[in-house]
């Protein structure tokens, strides 16, 4: 097995035993990038020189016996998290030349944990999309089928892990942007509780929904990454100062006697039959794990998409107002101030971003605020309550992550509503602020990965690790590698 194919915990064992070095691992991953990146296009920028220099430093530390949780582990960062001195584009023309003078808190934490930043991963522009097709830098392809999308918006981060172009990666999830591409790329992706992982330095899409999380090759790696990422940050007002457990302790525990909620609203029309079959297998597998499945109801599920597509664009319309060409990023030549503003934003933003800015601006406008934004906020509270009620009856909830496997590039670009539907099972999680995890649960006949999603109550990421770990061990999901 090649080093680039390994997991974090496998590589950490090898480093500890002196069987490999950070430099070897980094070189292995860089070679893999050289071999497959042209086909997959996971990255907006590969940080080759920086990674090799960091690996050299890491090896010095390792020699001194100073081995940290991610020492020598090449990690990819979605290009939405700010990296000091390294361009951070958010997949947009308007930030194509933006170099932050600061690191995101998660970047500081990963660096402190010994991670080696291997590249800035591709993404839908400003994280608006479900396919990574809206990136100014061109689409990322699904390593399992290069004709297909990897999901989005963190498609580059997911594809990079699936294609072994990094060992683990960071994404952000506003309506499913970690879990949906994790499912479509056959890897593990977790969206933590809102407030669990710092948003400082995460370029905002929808501030009340955005959350950073990891992509990994297995559940144990997810726990390792969570140990590094999670924790209170005084630089973020919505960061929550609660107990932050050791997530690794939940790996390998059983779930004997757990109740797994199956929301009836999630198994109606529109689900691909192969996905449906795989999820039904997953439910059966839960029984094998010693858990019991119970039907639950999330009665406001049908409103999730509508609520999301008011709140997220409303916040985005305001968050993206700062890109006006005055201070940084792209500036179009213009006559007077207003002309410069208009041309900068017209040329700097892509179609999907402009669509959402317009929707959001409309939803907040005088005379429409009560009917749209205010009403949506009220329904959001009901959706949150649905989950509170549900978690009185079960420990975790099991759902499909996506209604279909990966679709073809260009298949839905002309139909935004069809595109929006690919997040139908992931959006409610963000509206409620609860954590969710997606992990592989099988393949379609044509060999595309399918994901199962587990949800838990606020700050119950430990439960998600526990159930996912149990499932991973007991469900005997077939292990495959994409044939790149």
């Amino acid at each position, binding site marked *: 097995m090649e080093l680039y194919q390994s997991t974090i915990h496998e590589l950490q064992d090898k480093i500890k035993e002196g069987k490999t070095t950070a430099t070897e691992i980094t070189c292995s991953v860089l070679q893999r990038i050289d071999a497959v990146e042209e086909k997959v296009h996971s990255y907006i920028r590969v940080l080759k020189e920086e990674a090799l220099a960091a690996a050299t430093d890491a090896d010095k530390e390792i020699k001194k016996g100073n081995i940290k949780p991610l020492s020598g582990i090449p990690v990819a960062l979605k290009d*939405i*998290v*700010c990296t000091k001195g390294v361009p*951070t584009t*958010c997949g947009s023309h308007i*930030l194509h030349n*933006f170099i*932050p*003078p*600061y690191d*995101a808190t998660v970047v500081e934490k990963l660096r402190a944990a010994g991670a080696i930043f291997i590249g800035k991963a591709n993404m839908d522009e400003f994280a608006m999309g479900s396919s990574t097709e809206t990136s100014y830098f061109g689409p990322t392809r699904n390593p399992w089928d290069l004709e297909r999308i990897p999901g989005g918006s963190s498609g580059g981060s997911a594809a990079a892990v699936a294609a072994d172009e990094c060992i683990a990666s960071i994404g952000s999830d506003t309506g499913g942007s970690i879990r949906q591409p994790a499912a479509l790329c056959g890897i593990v992706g977790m969206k933590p509780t809102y407030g669990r992982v710092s*948003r*400082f*330095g*995460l*370029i*905002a899409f*929808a*501030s*009340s929904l955005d959350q950073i999380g990891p992509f990994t090759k297995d559940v144990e790696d997810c726990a390792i990454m969570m140990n590094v990422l999670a924790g209170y940050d*005084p*630089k*973020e*007002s*919505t960061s929550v100062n609660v107990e932050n457990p050791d997530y690794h302790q939940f790996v390998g525990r059983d779930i004997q006697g757990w109740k797994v909620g199956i929301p009836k609203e999630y198994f109606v029309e529109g689900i691909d039959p192969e996905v449906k079959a795989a999820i039904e297998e997953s439910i059966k597998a839960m029984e094998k794990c010693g858990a019991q499945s119970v039907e639950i109801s999330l009665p406001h599920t049908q409103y999730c998409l509508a609520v999301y597509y008011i709140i997220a664009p*409303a*916040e985005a*319309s*305001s968050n*993206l*107002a*700062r890109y*006006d060409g*005055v*201070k*940084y990023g792209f500036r179009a030549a213009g006559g007077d*101030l*207003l002309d410069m*503003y208009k041309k900068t934003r017209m040329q700097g933003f892509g179609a999907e971003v402009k669509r959402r800015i317009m929707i959001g*601006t409309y939803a*907040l*406008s*005088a005379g429409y*605020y009560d009917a749209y*934004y205010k009403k949506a906020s009220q329904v959001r509270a009901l959706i949150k309550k649905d989950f509170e009620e549900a978690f009185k009856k079960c420990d975790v909830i099991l759902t499909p992550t996506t209604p279909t496997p990966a679709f073809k590039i260009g298949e839905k670009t002309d139909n935004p509503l069809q595109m929006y539907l690919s997040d139908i099972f992931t959006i409610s999680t963000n509206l409620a602020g609860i954590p969710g995890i997606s992990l592989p649960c099988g393949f379609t006949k044509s060999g595309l990965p399918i994901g199962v999603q587990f949800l838990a109550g606020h700050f119950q990421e430990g439960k998600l690790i526990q159930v996912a770990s149990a499932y991973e061990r007991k469900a005997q999901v077939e292990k495959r590698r994409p044939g790149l």
Partner: protein
Amino acid sequence: MEFDAVIGLEVHAQMLTDTKIFCNCSTKFGAAPNSHTCPVCLGMPGVLPVLNKKVVEYAMKMALATNCNINSTCEFARKNYFYPDLPKGYQISQYAYPLAEHGYVELEVNGGKKKIGITRIHMEEDAGKLLHDEHNPVSYVDLNRTGVPLIEIVSEPDIRSSEEAADYLKRLHEILVYLEICDGNMEEGSFRCDANVSIRPKGQKEFGTRTELKNMNSFRNVQRALEYEIKRQQYIVENGGAIVQETRLWDDAQGATNSMRGKEEAHDYRYFPDPDLVPVIVDAAWIDKIRADMPELPQAKRERFISEYQISAYDAGVLTADKALAQYYEEVVAICAKPKQAANWLMGDVMKFLNEDKKTIRDCPIAAASLAEMINLIDAGTISGKMAKDIAEEMYRSGKKPQQVIAEKGMVQITDEAALAKTISSIIDANPQQLADYRAGKEKLFGYFVGQAMKATQGKANPQIVNDLLKKMLAGK
């Protein structure tokens, strides 16, 4: 037709915190452009605001001082608009749920009292500044002021004249400065005022169409702008015209208000709760803590000065207009126990010296204890009031204590009756003609003898003793 003016004021006051409202940058005025900035106040991608608790506490003080109700929960909202001095494209302010509401300030109007209602007090961040190049079509952006904390104090439309408006502003200004939460500097923009004004025929209940006045950077300009605008509106209405609802800018040089007629008018700010900030919860314990920390407010102090020191309302007003002056006065009185004299000396000579040097009482070279001692020396007869004027001036110039000045200048008053009688006797002897005229009824000549006596003693004679002796001796007793 007679008209009433209806005026409401919006005051923006910069809070005197060391750091900005949502980041750790300094709030100091006058630094090199953009030197007091960081990614947060520059509105760079991915950064987040964290509320400065002190701003809330300062705003709470103002709310308590103006009899407002402090809401148990308030929230920040985004006010969205594009302008180069606003780096995020929105201002973090408060909208649906402000910090405090339903207060009032009391004014003295025609000897009575009048309450001006306070609609609300809310917290927000200041915007930056644009500097326009006069010779080139270029503007420069200075974001040092971006994120400096402000409170906005919105009054009810309870004000009925430009004088009342100026009075109300002075009261607010005085309270803010007393609370030490705002430096009140209008030139530097720490205290700014916009006005909403309309007129209506006397007796009519409904308000007329209002205009909003901006760009008035002194009390006097607020008053002048309102006077102008009230007359302008009257002229239009009396000539059958209609008032247009608009924003008008005061032009100081022109002495007139002019319509802005800009795109600024059509703003829809699309307020919504800022998702990057959490609601501010203010409990009773916090309010109690702030209340316990409140200083005596100007009005209470004025009333106390009148009753405790038996000075006039006017004197009390002057002495309490500046908290430091009031404190100085109380220090003087605590030592000399002569409140009336202390007030006269302070408001007279001391203020005259300070005004000439454009100084405030904070920089006064005369220590309060020295002034008190000087008053005690006058009271004891050691020096005369007239001598004290020179001594006070010397104390002011040199910062010396009164005894030292007196000793150096040999200015001790002559109170030795026998010695003075001897001097007066020789003066009378030297002026037989004047003595004869005086005795013949020319009483005006009394002053002549006083002058001679003072001259002979180089002004050091105790005037009371000289008077008494002269009266006796000129009468031949």
